[in-house]
């Protein structure tokens, strides 16, 4: 009997703590919006964070995009070649990247590269009582720390996703046209004929904005909510990656089913 009570008690506790975190996360988001005006007065803080989340992620984004594009080119060529339509490789690479892989892989890399850094940084600030010190000086940590990082994530994620898609297509071009020898004119013209600006490119950009929002707010909240101990910060960092990745993949399914019917 005691076991049963414990069992249901544990379920209740798990549900309640998750609901609490969801609510606290939402509150943090609205606080961020409210303090955004304050943080925009010191715009260099945001630009600094764009440097850390965006510019420093550029190398990993470009390199992985090029490889993803090359793999798509190779795999697509092997299959399309069987049906004698290897010229359609451009369409395959472009649509796969612009619609799905660009936003999703960028968001996963972004969560791993920038999200963890945000969580660890804020968690450590909390552990070393820097956030409390700011409050003592009547400086809002949300305006000074959270809001600049939030907007930096929202700005850099779509930029990175766009660069990812374009570099990936160049990777596919490199393999398909320069290495395998698919006709260059057919590669680009089939791509242009089948990739729609408003349906494919803009929808991909919308996806990247949503993913950027999800990854950034999750990373910020995990850091802000982390227990101020070494173990707490390390756990929060792990949770950032896990929750961000799951959120990105889940949101991707929802957005895809809305967009491409």
């Amino acid at each position, binding site marked *: 009997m005691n076991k049963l009570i414990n069992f249901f008690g544990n379920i209740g506790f798990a549900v309640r703590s998750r609901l609490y975190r969801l609510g606290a996360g939402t509150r943090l988001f609205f606080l961020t919006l409210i303090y955004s005006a304050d943080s925009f007065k010191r715009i260099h803080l945001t*630009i600094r964070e764009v440097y850390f989340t965006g510019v420093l992620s550029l190398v990993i984004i470009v390199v992985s995009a090029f490889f993803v594009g090359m793999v798509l080119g190779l795999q697509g060529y092997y299959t399309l070649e069987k049906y004698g339509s290897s010229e359609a490789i451009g369409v395959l690479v472009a649509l796969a990247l612009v619609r799905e892989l660009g936003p999703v892989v960028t968001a996963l890399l972004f969560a791993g590269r920038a999200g963890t850094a945000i969580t660890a940084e804020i968690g450590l600030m909390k552990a070393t009582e820097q956030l409390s010190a700011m409050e003592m000086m009547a400086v809002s940590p949300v305006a000074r720390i959270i809001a600049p990082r939030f907007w930096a994530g929202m700005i850099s994620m779509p930029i990175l996703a766009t660069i990812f898609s*374009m570099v990936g297509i160049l990777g596919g071009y490199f393999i398909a046209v320069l290495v395998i020898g698919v006709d260059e004119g057919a590669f680009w013209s089939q791509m242009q004929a089948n990739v729609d600006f408003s349906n494919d490119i803009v929808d991909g950009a919308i996806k990247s904005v949503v993913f950027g929002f999800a990854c950034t707010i999750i990373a910020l909240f995990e850091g802000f909510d982390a227990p101020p101990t070494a173990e707490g910060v390390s756990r929060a960092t792990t949770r950032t990656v896990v929750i961000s990745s799951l959120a990105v993949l889940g949101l991707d399914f929802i957005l895809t089913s809305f967009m491409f019917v």
Partner: protein
Amino acid sequence: MERAKIDIWVGILVALGIAAFFALATKVGNLTSNDIRETYTVLAHFENIGGLKPRAPIKGAGVVVGRVKSIVFNTEAYHAIVELDIDKRYVFPKDTFANIYTSGLLGEQYIGLEAGGDENNLVEGDLITYTQDAVVLEKLISQFLYSKASEED
């Protein structure tokens, strides 16, 4: 790191992003080739549209001259009413033929316009009277089989 250096790097990132988006829009997407701006709309009735979809191309002699605007089913006459958006630069005679074709063996379907000999041109809201439906493969095969069977009798 000093502020000026950070600004430069962020500027490079934003410039790269804009360049990539511009390249996606013009080189990868159809923003440049999609230069159909001012259009006039004409109607056409089809008994069967096959797999024709809204935004499918309308071609005259193979050149894209417009796009399908909408397809609705008419419950009174039981046929499909297709609205065609045609670029204002291209005019077609009143007795133009509208045929539903398939590009390639398995490709998308489009409407091919073949000009007739009428002296008056189609204007906004006109109805194309000469239409040819999409070819339905099952019908074609069954017709072929029936004709074969009747030959053998």
